[in-house]
C-alpha cells in the first residue's frame, strides 16, 4: 500500500498551517509591540499604571461615593464605573417595564393603541441613539424646564428645573447602626422561612402561596427592629453644629472638645436631622429679564424658594419705596413670596394683566429693580448631607438693604450709590444683628431628607442631574423599543391553543395573560432581552453627549491628562469585558433555568 506523502497528509498540513499562522501572528504582534514601545518612549508617555495613584483633579458632578478633585485617578475611575452602573441598573428596570408595556400594546385589540405602539417602536429603533441623547439633553431637558430658582413643584415634594430632578429620600440616620443587625436577621429569616414554606408546599402537594411567609417575616422583623432602634435608649452623643448664618452654611460634627466650633480632627456627621431658626432676617434680589423655557420672561424677581411652613410672617417690598412709587411699580406674585414680576398698572384695573411687565417705551422689562423680603420666625428642618453640611439662604440682617440704599440716594444714581453705601454705615443703629439657632433633633434609623433650594442649587433629598436624566431617558426609551419587539415576538410564539384552553377553563382574560401566556412568552423573550440589557449598559458609553461622568468619559479625560493611552485603553477594554461576562453569566443561568424540562 502506498503511503500518503507528508505534504498531502491532512494532519501534517493542519499542524504546519497552525505553526505558520502562529509564527506570522507572533511576528506581527512583536513588530506592533516594538512600534508601541519605541513610540511611547520617544513621546515620553507612561506605559505603566503608576499614574493611578496621582491626583486626578477631574471635577465630577455626580459622585455616589465621596470624592474631591484631590483624590487620585483610581478613585475617579471607580466613580465612573459606579456612575455607569447607576445609569445601567435603573435603565434596565425602566426599559423592561416600558418595553413590556409597549410590546403588549402592539398586540392590543384597539387600533389606535396598536398604531401608537408601532410608531413608537419604528421611530425609536431607526434613529441613532446619539441623536436621541442630544435631543433629550440639549433640546428638551436643558432649555425646557424653568431655572433652578423657579422650579416646577410636583406632588410629593419633587422639584424639577433645568438643573435636574430632586425628590425626598430616606437616608440612614444616627440610629441606623442599631437597626442593621435586625435587617440582616430579617433577610436571613425571610430566606429560611421561604425555603421552609416552599418545602411544606411541595410535600403537601398543595397550591400554597409561598411568598406571604418570607415577606411577612422580612417586614415584621424589620419593623420590630426599627421600633427598638428608634425608641430604645438613645446613645449619648456629643454632636454639635458649627453654623455661620451670614454665609448660610454649617457642619454637623462630633464635638470632642465641647467648644461648639469644628476643630481639626473633629469628624463631620452625615444625615443628622437639624432645625434652623432665624428670628428676623431679610433677603434681597433685583428684577431681571430672563430667557427661560424657550421664551423671554421680563421683569422677573426670584427669591430663594420659601414655603409657607418655613416662616411665621413674611413681606416683600421695594428697597427704594419712593422711587418705586414714582415709577408706578407694583408687585405681582406668581408664587408668594418667592417669585413674581414687577409691573406698572397701565390699564388701571388694579391688577396685573399680561404685557404690563414690559416697559412700553423701551420694549423690554424693568430690570434691576431692587426688592427686599423680610422674614420673621424662619424655621426649617434640614437634614445634613453626606458630608455633614447644612445650608440655608444667605440671610442678611433686617434693615441692611434699606440702610445701604438710604446712603445711596435715589435709584437713578445707583452706580454711585453702591460705592457710597460703605460710607453710609452711620445708619447701623437700625440694623438688627442676625440671630440664628440650630437644634439637633433625635432621628430614627432612617431620616427623610426633603429638598430645598437655599441659593441656586438643590440641597437635601436625592438629586438627579439633567445629564443623568437625559442619558437615562434616551437609553430607556431607545432600549424599550427593542425590548418591546422581543416581548411581541415572545407573546406571538405562545401557541394559540394555550390561550383558548385557558379561556375554556374559565380564566379571566387578565388571568390568561398573567398565568398562562406571559410565563411561556418569557421563555422566548428573556434571552434576547438580556442581551438588550447588555446593549443598554454598553450604550451608556455615549455619555459624553450628555456630559455625564461615567466610565468612558472619565477614562477619556484621564487619557488626555496623563497621556497614558495604552494603560487606559487596557483598563477600558477589561472593564467592558467584565461587564459583558457578568451579563453572559446571567444569560447562561437564565437559559438553564427556563429551559424546557424534557422527560
Amino acid at each position: 500500500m502506498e503511503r500518503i506523502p507528508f505534504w498531502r497528509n491532512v494532519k501534517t498540513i493542519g499542524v504546519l498551517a497552525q505553526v505558520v499562522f502562529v509564527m506570522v501572528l507572533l511576528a506581527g504582534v512583536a513588530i506592533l509591540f516594538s512600534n508601541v514601545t519605541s513610540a511611547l518612549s520617544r513621546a515620553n508617555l507612561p506605559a505603566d499604571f503608576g499614574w493611578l495613584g496621582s491626583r486626578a483633579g477631574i471635577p465630577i458632578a455626580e459622585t455616589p461615593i465621596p470624592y474631591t478633585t484631590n483624590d487620585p485617578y483610581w478613585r475617579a475611575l471607580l466613580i465612573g464605573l459606579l456612575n455607569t452602573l447607576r445609569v445601567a441598573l435603573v435603565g434596565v428596570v425602566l426599559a423592561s417595564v416600558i418595553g413590556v408595556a409597549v410590546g403588549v400594546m402592539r398586540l392590543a385589540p384597539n387600533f389606535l393603541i396598536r398604531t401608537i405602539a408601532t410608531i413608537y417602536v419604528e421611530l425609536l429603533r431607526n434613529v441613532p441613539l446619539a441623536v436621541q441623547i442630544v435631543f433629550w439633553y440639549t433640546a428638551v431637558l436643558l432649555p425646557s424646564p424653568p431655572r433652578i430658582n423657579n422650579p416646577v413643584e410636583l406632588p410629593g415634594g419633587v422639584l424639577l428645573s433645568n438643573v435636574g430632578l430632586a425628590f425626598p429620600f430616606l437616608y440612614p440616620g444616627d440610629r441606623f447602626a442599631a437597626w442593621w443587625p435586625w435587617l440582616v436577621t430579617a433577610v436571613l429569616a425571610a430566606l429560611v422561612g421561604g425555603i421552609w414554606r416552599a418545602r411544606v408546599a411541595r410535600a403537601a402537594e398543595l397550591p400554597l402561596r409561598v411568598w406571604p411567609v418570607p415577606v411577612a417575616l422580612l417586614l415584621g422583623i424589620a419593623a420590630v427592629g426599627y421600633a427598638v432602634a428608634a425608641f430604645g435608649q438613645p446613645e449619648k452623643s456629643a454632636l454639635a453644629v458649627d453654623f455661620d448664618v451670614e454665609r448660610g452654611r454649617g457642619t454637623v460634627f462630633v464635638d470632642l472638645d465641647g467648644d461648639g466650633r469644628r476643630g481639626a480632627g473633629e469628624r463631620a456627621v452625615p444625615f443628622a436631622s437639624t432645625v434652623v431658626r432665624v428670628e428676623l432676617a431679610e433677603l434681597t434680589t433685583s428684577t431681571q429679564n430672563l430667557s427661560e423655557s424657550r421664551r423671554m420672561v421680563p421683569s422677573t424677581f426670584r427669591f430663594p424658594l420659601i414655603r409657607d411652613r418655613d416662616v411665621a410672617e413674611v413681606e416683600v417690598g421695594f428697597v427704594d419705596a419712593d422711587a418705586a412709587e414714582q415709577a408706578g411699580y407694583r408687585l405681582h406674585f406668581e408664587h408668594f413670596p418667592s417669585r413674581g414680576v414687577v409691573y406698572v398698572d397701565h390699564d388701571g384695573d388694579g391688577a396685573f394683566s399680561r404685557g404690563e411687565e414690559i416697559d412700553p417705551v423701551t420694549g423690554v422689562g424693568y430690570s434691576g429693580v431692587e426688592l427686599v423680603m423680610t422674614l420673621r420666625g424662619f424655621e426649617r428642618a434640614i437634614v445634613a448631607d453626606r458630608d455633614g453640611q447644612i445650608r440655608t439662604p444667605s440671610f442678611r440682617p433686617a434693615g441692611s438693604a434699606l440702610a445701604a440704599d438710604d446712603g445711596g440716594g435715589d435709584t437713578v444714581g445707583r452706580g454711585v450709590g453702591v460705592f457710597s453705601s460703605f460710607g453710609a454705615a452711620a445708619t447701623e443703629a437700625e440694623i438688627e444683628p442676625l440671630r440664628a439657632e440650630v437644634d439637633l433633633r433625635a432621628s430614627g434609623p432612617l431620616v427623610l431628607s426633603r429638598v430645598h433650594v437655599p441659593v441656586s442649587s438643590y440641597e437635601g433629598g436625592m438629586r438627579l442631574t439633567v445629564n443623568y436624566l437625559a442619558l437615562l431617558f434616551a437609553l430607556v426609551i431607545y432600549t424599550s423599543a427593542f425590548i418591546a419587539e422581543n416581548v411581541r415576538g415572545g407573546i406571538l410564539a405562545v401557541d394559540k391553543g394555550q390561550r383558548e384552553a385557558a379561556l375554556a377553563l374559565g380564566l379571566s382574560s387578565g388571568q390568561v395573560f398573567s398565568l398562562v401566556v406571559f410565563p411561556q412568552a418569557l421563555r422566548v423573550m428573556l434571552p434576547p432581552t438580556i442581551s438588550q440589557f447588555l446593549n443598554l449598559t454598553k450604550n451608556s458609553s455615549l455619555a459624553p453627549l450628555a456630559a455625564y461622568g461615567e466610565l468612558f468619559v472619565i477614562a477619556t479625560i484621564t487619557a488626555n491628562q496623563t497621556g497614558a493611552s495604552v494603560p487606559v485603553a487596557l483598563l477600558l477594554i477589561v472593564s467592558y469585558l467584565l461587564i459583558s461576562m457578568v451579563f453572559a453569566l446571567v444569560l447562561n443561568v437564565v437559559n438553564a433555568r427556563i429551559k424546557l424540562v424534557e422527560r
Partner: protein
Amino acid sequence: MFRVIPARPAPSGETGVLAWLRRNLFSSAANTLLTLATGAVLVSALAGLLRWALFDAAWAQVWANMRLLAVFRYPTDLLWRPLVVLAVLLLLLGIMAGAARRNEILRGAFWWVTGFVALFALTAVVFWPSVRWFWLAAGLAPFIGYGAGVARPGLLRAMRWAWALWLVGGFALLHGIVPGSVLLRIAPTRDWGGFMLTMVLFTAIVPSFPLGVALALGRRSRLPAIKTVCIAFIEVVRGAPLIMWLFVASLLLPLLLDTDPNNLPAILRAYVAITLFSAAYMAENVRGGLQAVPRGQIEAAQALGLSGWQTTSLIVLPQALRAVIPAIVGQCIALFKDTSLVFVVGLIDFYRVTEVIATQPASLSITGGVKLELYLFISLVYFFFAYRMSVASRQLEKRLGGGTR
C-alpha cells in the same frame, strides 16, 4: 335534483368600514372610552407638533445650512465629485433593479431611494444653481440605469466588477487623484463631513464582510490555534462598545504603526475601527448561517470528491450566507446608525454638523435655538434610510421562509 346555492355575501354588519371600526375601535364600552381618550390626546399632540413645525420652527436656518449638512466643508468648486459618485451609484442600482425585475425587494428599495434623490434634484433645479446640472444628472441616472437594465439583463453579470470599481473609483474621486490640478486636486479629508462622511463610513460594511466570513470560518476551524485566535478577537471586540474602539483606535493606531498622528487622518482611524468592529459582529451572523447548513450537505460534497476549500466556497457558504441576509441587513442598519459615534474622534458627520450649525451666531440669535429643528430634520433622514432597510429585511425574511431555517 341538487342545485348549488351560491355562497351568500357576509352579513353587512361584518364587512366594510363600519365593521372594521367596530371591531378595532369600538368593540366594547371600555374600548370605546380608550379610543376616545387616546384619540383626543393624539389629536392635541399632533396639532401641537404641526403648529410648531408650520409656524414656530425656524426652518430657514436648517435650509440655509443644507450644504454643511450634505458635505460639510468639502470644497465648493468640487461639489460635482460627490454628485458624480452618487449618480454612478444610482446608475448601478438602476441597472440591477432593471435587470433583476423579478426581485421585488431590490426594486422597492431602488424606487424609494430614487424618489428621495429626485426630490433633491428638483430642489436643486429650482434653488441651488451652482450644483443644478449635477443634481439633475444624479436625478436622471437611476432612470437611465433602469432602462439599460431592462434592455440588457446581461449587464447583471458585470455588476460585481462595476460595484468594486465604483467603490474604489468613488474613494479616489472624492479624495482627488492629481495633486495641484484644478479638477482632480486633493480634497483634504478634514474638510469631509456631513451626510457624505456618514455614507463613506457606512461603506466600511464592505471590507468587514470578507473579514467577518474569514473570522466565522476560523471560529469553526478544527485547528485549535486558529480557532482560539478568532474566538478571542470576536469576543473581545464584541465585548466593548464601538465608541470605545473608536477612541482606542484613534489613540493606539499611530502608536501601533509608530507614525506621527498627523500622518493618519481621523477618518482612516475611524474607518479601521468600524471595519474591525463590524467584522466581529458579521462573523457572529455568518456563524449562525454556517450552523444552519445541514451536516449532510458537507458529507454529500465530500462524497462527490470536492476538496475542503471547494466544499466551503461552493456548498456551505452560498447556503449559509443566503440564510443570514436578513441578519446582515439588520447589521447594516445598526452600523448606519452607529456611524454617528465618530464625533468621538473629532469627525463632523451628518449628526455632528448639527452642533456646528447650532453654534453659528445666526442660530444663537434665535430665541430657544434651532436644535429642535435640526434634530428633527436629521432624525427624519436617518429614519428614512434605516426604516427602508428594515422593511427590506422583513421582506427578505418572509421570502426566505419566515426567518426559520
